[in-house]
């Protein structure tokens, strides 16, 4: 199990006259269990990459991270403990893909034959002698995944590994990561593709502005938000009156009304008692995306503004 404990990291910004300190990661603690895929979610600038770097000792900050109870640098060969993909294009552009991996294999005291094995796993055997400077983003990601797999590590820490992959590549990656975790290994993976995350991850850690927002299983996270009921009737105004009378919150949609945290039979009976004809009645489960947006509301570092909002 990876245990990240009280991770904190601050950056100074501004000039000498007006220097400010910004907390990129703020007292963050969570765990990555073996046998499971842990999704790492947060808006842009939430501190996901910084957290991963802190966990690996690449950045200096406060707190500690243990891998099966010991810090990473206490292992003789860290390459066999954790494999990383933090950036797709982390390679010398004119060093061939095979040579790039051979450099990493040597650093991890791994046999050269492992290089060809991982190139085969990620489907880059045909371009092993090519210079990766001209690789597409998807190919670069595959090379990064190959680098992470070199030492057959117990844990994988992957930052946006699906970026740039084609649909087939994403499906392969999803299955690969799930299979990898099943071998009593742990995977921490960040992604902005929430639909992918919901298919891939067992647990999820959500952060915003460097702080922990949620650390739970995806099932619990989504279930905790409950279900809502969408209803369409012949006389919407009458239904609104009935809902108000029943002290139920509701939201008007273009074609109907959504009643959060409700059950279909309750709404159905209410409509019947108000002598309304029900045209549509459906229970809606919250998606991971909805939950994510709800959880991280106000925790975004960068926000787009529409013209209307600017006015």
């Amino acid at each position: 199990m990876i245990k990240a404990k009280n991770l904190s990291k601050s950056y100074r910004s501004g000039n000498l006259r007006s220097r400010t300190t910004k907390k990129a990661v703020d007292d963050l603690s969570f765990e990555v269990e073996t046998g499971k895929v842990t999704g790492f979610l947060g808006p842009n600038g939430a501190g996901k990459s910084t957290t991963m770097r802190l966990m690996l000792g690449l950045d200096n900050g406060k707190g500690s991270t243990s891998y099966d109870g010991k810090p990473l640098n206490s292992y003789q060969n860290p390459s066999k403990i954790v494999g990383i993909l933090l950036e797709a294009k982390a390679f010398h552009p004119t060093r061939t893909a095979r040579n790039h991996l051979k450099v990493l294999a040597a650093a991890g005291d791994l046999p050269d034959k492992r290089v060809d094995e991982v190139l085969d796993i990620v489907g880059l055997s045909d371009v092993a002698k090519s210079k990766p400077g001209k690789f597409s983003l998807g190919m670069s990601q595959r090379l990064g995944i190959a680098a992470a797999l070199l030492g057959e590590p117990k844990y994988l820490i992957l930052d946006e590994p699906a970026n740039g992959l084609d649909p087939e590549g994403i499906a392969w990656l999803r299955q690969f990561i799930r299979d990898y975790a099943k071998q009593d290994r742990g995977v921490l993976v960040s992604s902005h593709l929430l639909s992918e995350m919901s298919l891939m991850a067992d647990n999820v850690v959500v952060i915003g502005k460097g702080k922990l927002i949620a650390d739970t299983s995806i099932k619990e996270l989504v279930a905790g938000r409950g279900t809502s009921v969408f209803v369409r009737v012949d006389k919407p105004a009458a239904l609104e009156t009935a809902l108000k009378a029943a002290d139920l919150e509701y939201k008007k949609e273009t074609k109907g009304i959504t009643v959060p945290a409700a059950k279909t039979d309750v709404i159905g009976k209410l409509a019947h008692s108000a002598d309304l004809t029900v045209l549509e009645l459906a229970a809606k489960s919250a998606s991971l995306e909805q939950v994510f947006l709800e959880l991280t509301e106000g925790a975004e570092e960068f926000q787009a503004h529409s013209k209307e909002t600017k006015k």
Partner: protein
Amino acid sequence: MMASLKSEFRKLLSVRTTYIITAGVLLFVGFIAFYVEGWRLKPIELAKPDQLSSDVFGALSLSLFGAVIAILQMTHEYRYNTIIYTLTSSNSRSRVLLSKFIVISCYALFLTTLISLLSPIATYLGVHAAGHSLVPQHLYYKDLIWRSLFFGWSYGMIGLVLATIIRSQVGAIVALFITPAAIEPLLTQLLNAKAVYLPFTSLGMVTGGETVKGASITPERGALVFLIYLVISWLVAWYLFLRRDAT
């Protein structure tokens, strides 16, 4: 440690710039030694018994390119972000830095040896190709070897220490060229005879024997002064390498 060393050697030997720069330096040394120092040698210089020795020391100025290789070895890591793999593959940052130190030392000594061998051979061939001959040469091998190797190795170390401290490729290369070409000459105007104790000037004393504002120091003293600067710089570089974020 062996794993880090092997990886660093592979990094050095798997990029084409290493070969291009090495080949370029050797071609230039060969050309200058053969044509300028050999073929076109004046009669008065043919009679100098230390002509080959001074040719070797002159050619060693190209050890500067050993420093460029050292800079690339370190700054490529930051430029292309491979430092994340280098540091997470090892359980000690000090070990990583020591590996780079050893690999660059080996390369710098290798380059210096090639320059030191090629230069007198090419000069000798150039002189004979022009139909001349040198007077019997006095080659003080022990002196020649330690001064040459120390000079070449030192440039490798200068490059590596600058790259470790500055981390930017352009910044380190600019510092490498600007310091001896502009900063130390300006400081010489301020320090006068004491300028022989400036780092690049003192290193120049190891091979040059020229005077600065009428003053000079022995090669041994020059080497010692330079080593003091180098040790202090390495302590700073080591501390920064341990403490700074790997970005």
